[in-house]
């Protein structure tokens, strides 16, 4: 607890017109009795209305991490290449050649549920600011999205609006959106997930931290004016979405990507010229969080006069100004001697700037409204003494039961033709090509995009070097739901596999932990287990967590979303000539499988298609063999023995093979593959659909010249992984063929292509601008 100051700070008097602080008002602000008592202790008195608002925002789940902090401690955050771990605006790792990669992911789920276009757009804006305030130039965006079924008009409306919002914002600022993922499942009905990740580059020796220092230094508000938008957005993000959400929602924040672009250029110029001491985005909880967090990191105090904050609307109260989440605003600390130069840069970029306060030495977050003192709070109490909880955690017995379900019988009894299942899986919206999405994104601005969306991971070159960065986001929420620990591991392993497939060494991750209400034991159980699994996988693969975001309360009247801990992973390719792509290239090439055939159907897209249910256990994960798989891929890529590599994920081996064949529409090829039990003894007694569509982990399909097969196999043997020849790449006319014993499953190339590429566009043709029903 804060020591009682020798000279107790002056006490703000109630402000005329402000409501009286009553127990009911405290509850409305989402503070428990205990939390309120702690507020009283920290202040040594009752808070004013303004102070109550400040505590409520800073101690919301969104800002205070009160339900997650203890659990997150279990994640590895260190490594020789980590330049910045969690705690700053974004994390950073060293990627060689003097470069740092700065990256982070954020959620904007609730705002997007209310207003998909603006919600998603402002999500992109927020994460961009987190990157460039570190002194890094953003070079790429990624987006990880979840919606309910596309059969419903409302979901199509949300999907359409979110994609437009992400696209319009990033396109306008000029940051390419190069990778991402989209899943559709009823579990996300009414509570879509919209996670945006940004990747930036900086000189490793010039990263900037948001630490306020220098008593007397002026504090400036820069960028857009403050309006009443999103007041208590942080608290809103910390509640379940209910039927009344439409009315109680805070005023919607509107994004202004043009101003963002100006802020980006101005900020980078200021930081490069060393003109600012610290700078932070006014994100969740607005000026309150940026001011108090910068002061907390610097061990200083900070004083803000709200009467000097430029506002957009008349008669705004201190409470509103402090908690507004208007977009495209920054708080900046400069030395007095640089103030003129700072203003000059901002003016050059047509940005407004106003001195709104100063750095102090008394450790207080002091807020004035002109002459009047309206809040006076010890910074450490506010920022660091938010209570933390270890909620009761208990697995839902229903899920434990689900895990035991028999997944083989439905497959064995499936009387649909396997070729039809194959085609339908290629057209399943979660598997089908997301071209409809990423053609709405500028993927090539910046002239760094070596490989944009469509492959296993995006590749961007590092200016002036032969190195390239690779990046991906991954998470299958169904696995996490069925088995949170494995699901958490799989998210990390899949991301690592995706990077390895393009020839990149995984370096580090950022995560966006989307869960339901943590006060429910079954949700908290999911959370603890999933984070635990994630941590184990990160340790095994040597990819520390450098930051992330927690989004709880993703629930709607129909229940919680699947636990969805999205992993955003960064990797490096030492020489971009070693990059590998996922499409088959040459007729006659050998097709090989790294890893086992497997046949696990738990939580698979196939099982969902056949039974309509998500059942069974998530596929098993072997962390050590994943580590070896990554090593193997890197060595094969470096030797340039591979013509293609593609990870097996949703839809299993058959879908991975088909994707490799039709990846380049202008170069469609066929293949013939034989899962002969003599070569693949594990396929002997598995039902055919399990072999084709099972989602066993740790598998990569590669193609290479037949002459290279032996060397590849030898290399696999050296690292101790199975590598067997599946068959050959053929002409298009041969079609896609998989034989298992005497059975042959066939699909025409055109049929496969149209299933895969036309599925989402065909569904979205039916979308009007604001349909609200099916």
């Amino acid at each position, binding site marked *: 607890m804060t020591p009682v100051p020798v000279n107790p700070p002056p006490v703000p008097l109630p402000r005329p017109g402000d409501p009286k602080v009553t127990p009911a008002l405290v509850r409305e602000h989402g503070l428990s009795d205990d939390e309120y008592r702690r507020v009283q202790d920290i202040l040594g008195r009752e808070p004013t209305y303004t102070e109550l608002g400040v505590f409520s925002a800073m101690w919301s789940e969104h800002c205070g991490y009160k339900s997650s902090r203890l659990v997150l401690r279990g994640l590895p955050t260190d490594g020789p290449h980590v330049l910045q771990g969690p705690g700053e605006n974004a994390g950073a790792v060293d990627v060689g050649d003097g470069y740092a990669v700065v990256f982070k992911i954020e959620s904007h789920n609730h705002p997007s549920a209310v207003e998909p276009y603006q919600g998603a757009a402002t999500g992109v804006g927020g994460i961009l600011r987190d990157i460039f305030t570190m002194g890094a130039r953003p070079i790429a965006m990624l987006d990880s999205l979840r919606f309910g079924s596309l059969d419903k008009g409302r979901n199509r409306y949300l999907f359409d609006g979110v994609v437009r919002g992400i696209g319009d914002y990033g396109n306008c600022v000029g940051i390419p959106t190069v990778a991402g993922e989209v899943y559709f499942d009823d579990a996300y009905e009414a509570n879509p997930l919209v996670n945006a990740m940004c990747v930036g580059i900086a000189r490793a020796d010039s990263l900037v931290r948001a630490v306020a220092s220098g008593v007397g230094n002026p504090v400036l508000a820069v960028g857009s004016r403050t309006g009443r*938008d999103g007041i208590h957005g942080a608290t809103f993000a910390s509640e379940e979405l209910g039927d009344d959400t439409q009315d109680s929602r805070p*005023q919607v924040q509107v994004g202004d990507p043009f101003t963002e672009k100006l802020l980006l250029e101005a900020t980078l110029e200021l930081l490069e010229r060393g003109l600012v001491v610290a700078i932070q985005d006014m994100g969740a909880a607005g000026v309150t969080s940026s001011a108090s967090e910068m002061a907390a990191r610097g061990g200083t105090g900070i004083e803000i006069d709200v009467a000097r904050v430029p506002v957009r609307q008349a008669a705004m109260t201190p409470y509103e100004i402090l908690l507004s989440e208007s977009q495209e605003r920054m708080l900046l600390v400069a030395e007095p001697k640089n103030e003129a130069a700072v203003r000059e840069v901002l003016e050059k970029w047509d940005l407004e700037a106003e001195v709104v306060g100063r750095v102090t030495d008394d450790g207080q977050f002091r807020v004035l409204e002109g002459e009047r003192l309206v809040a006076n709070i010890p910074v450490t109490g506010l920022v660091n003494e938010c209570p933390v909880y270890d909620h009761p955690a208990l697995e839902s017995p229903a899920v434990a039961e689900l895990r035991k379900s028999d997944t083989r019988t439905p497959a064995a009894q499936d009387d649909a033709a396997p070729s039809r299942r194959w085609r339908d899986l290629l057209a399943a919206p979660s598997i089908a090509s997301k071209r409809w999405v990423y053609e709405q994104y500028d993927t090539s601005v910046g002239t760094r995009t070596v490989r944009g969306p469509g492959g296993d991971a995006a590749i961007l070159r590092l200016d002036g070097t032969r190195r390239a960065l690779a990046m991906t986001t991954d998470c299958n929420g169904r696995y996490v739901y069925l088995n949170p620990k494995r699901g958490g591991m799989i998210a990390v392993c899949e991301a690592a596999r995706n990077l390895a497939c393009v020839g990149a060494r995984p370096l580090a991750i950022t995560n966006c932990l989307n869960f339901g209400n943590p006060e429910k034991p079954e949700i908290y159980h999911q959370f603890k287990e999933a984070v635990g699994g994630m941590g184990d996988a990160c340790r095994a693969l040597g990819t520390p967590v450098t930051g992330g975001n927690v989004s709880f309360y993703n629930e709607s009247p129909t229940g919680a979303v699947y636990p969805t801990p999205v992993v955003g992973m960064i990797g490096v390719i030492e020489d971009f000539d070693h990059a590998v792509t996922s499409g088959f290239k040459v007729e006659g090439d050998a097709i090989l499988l790294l890893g086992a055939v497997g046949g696990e159907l738990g939580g698979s897209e196939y099982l969902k298609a056949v039974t309509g249910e998500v059942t069974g256990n998530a596929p098993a994960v072997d962390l050590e063999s994943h580590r070896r798989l990554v090593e193997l891929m890197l060595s094969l890529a470096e030797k340039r023995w591979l013509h293609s590599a593609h990870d097996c994920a949703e839809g299993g081996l058959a879908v991975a093979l088909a994707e490799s064949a039709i990846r380049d529409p202008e170069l469609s090829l066929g293949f013939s593959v034989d899962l002969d039990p003599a070569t693949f003894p594990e396929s002997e007694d598995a039902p055919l659909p399990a072999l084709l569509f099972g989602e066993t982990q740790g598998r990569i399909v590669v193609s290479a010249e037949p002459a290279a097969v032996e060397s590849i196999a030898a290399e696999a043997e050296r690292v101790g992984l199975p590598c067997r020849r599946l068959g050959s790449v053929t002409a298009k006319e041969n079609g896609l063929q998989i034989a298992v014993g005497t059975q042959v499953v066939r699909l025409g190339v055109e049929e496969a292509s149209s299933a895969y590429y036309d599925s989402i566009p065909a569904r979205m043709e039916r979308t009007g601008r*604001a349909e609200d029903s099916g």
Partner: protein
Amino acid sequence: MTDYRIEVRVTPREGLLDPQGRAVETALTSLGFDGVESVRIGKLVRMRVEAASEPEAMSRAREMCDRLIANPVIEDYSIRILDENNGDAGGGDA
């Protein structure tokens, strides 16, 4: 059934940021038009709607706005029926 010419004006809700309006205001000012303020930019939708009566035409138009044309979260709208012969010009036009 009569054919009514309907005009819907969709405007950003009061208090919401309107970056378009702001950009145009700044541009007008820098072009030397001073004394220009509160520029807000919205949408104008014109259409022909079949209905049995004016009130019916209005109520159909209102339903279209609620369901598709306007987004109530961020936009307000107003509807008028245009006079067939004096359509484009409307009331106060020069």
